[in-house]
């Protein structure tokens, strides 16, 4: 049975030092991220949307942190960045609703508030739906990354 190459450092932190896992994850991560961004941005044209696209994007960052060690993962997205992105996603949702009030409709309105509609079926159509989808995607991705960092770290 092949042995897993694990090195123990400190209490509760492992680093997988396997060449195949590292090279494969280094090759595959850009494709996963492009696919995640595609699912988020095409939320109003094909099945998908903010939640599933955000989960795919967050999963690629967790893959980088798992196949290398935790320091490399934290260098991609630090604790501070993921915290700010997560709060920023929720704040963006609320501010889009408030922007609908300033533009003349009710809270979180789409067509009656005057967002640019465009042609049905194009990429830049359906005004507020695209903006809200992108914010929700950012929020879910950083939620998954923050959860992973908090659960995997050992005691201080």
């Amino acid at each position, binding site marked *: 049975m092949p042995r897993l190459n694990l090195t123990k450092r400190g209490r509760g932190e492992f680093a997988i030092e396997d060449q195949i896992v590292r090279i494969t994850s280094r090759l595959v991560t850009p494709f996963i991220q492009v696919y995640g961004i595609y699912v988020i941005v095409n939320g109003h044209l094909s099945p998908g949307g903010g939640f599933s696209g955000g989960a795919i994007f967050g999963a690629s960052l967790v893959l980088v942190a798992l196949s290398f060690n935790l320091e490399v993962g934290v260098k991609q997205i630090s604790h501070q960045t993921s915290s700010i992105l997560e709060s920023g996603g929720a704040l963006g949702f609320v501010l889009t609703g408030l922007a609908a009030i300033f533009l003349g409709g009710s809270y979180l309105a789409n067509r009656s508030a005057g967002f640019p509609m465009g042609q049905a079926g194009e990429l830049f*159509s359906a005004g507020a739906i695209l903006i809200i989808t992108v914010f929700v995607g950012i929020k879910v991705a950083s939620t998954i990354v923050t959860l992973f960092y*908090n659960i995997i770290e050992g005691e201080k």
Partner: protein
Amino acid sequence: MVYILILFIIVITLILRFIIGVEAKTLLTFYLLGLIIFLFSFTVAEMPPFGSPDSPAFNEVPRRYLESGVAETGAVNIISSVIIDYRAFDTLGEATVLFVAIAAVIATLKSH
């Protein structure tokens, strides 16, 4: 008919408990779960048939969303327009639930 079934169950219970030696806790668990499946299967048999076009879940509200969804919101994906345009307040509540859950996880794990 029902009495024969009850007698059958009692005989099986006595055989399993005293001759084969299964624990009483395991038997009780299996009987409880069997009772749940039995009761729910009556509910499943009474439900409207699977996939019929005149089921009560397909009344005028989904028909309105399907017919005038593209014209009113401009999104081709009807589910996206339902959760972001027609029912946007529920999605705001869901984003709040995500946020509160993450805050609870951080507060539990990083309390010095």
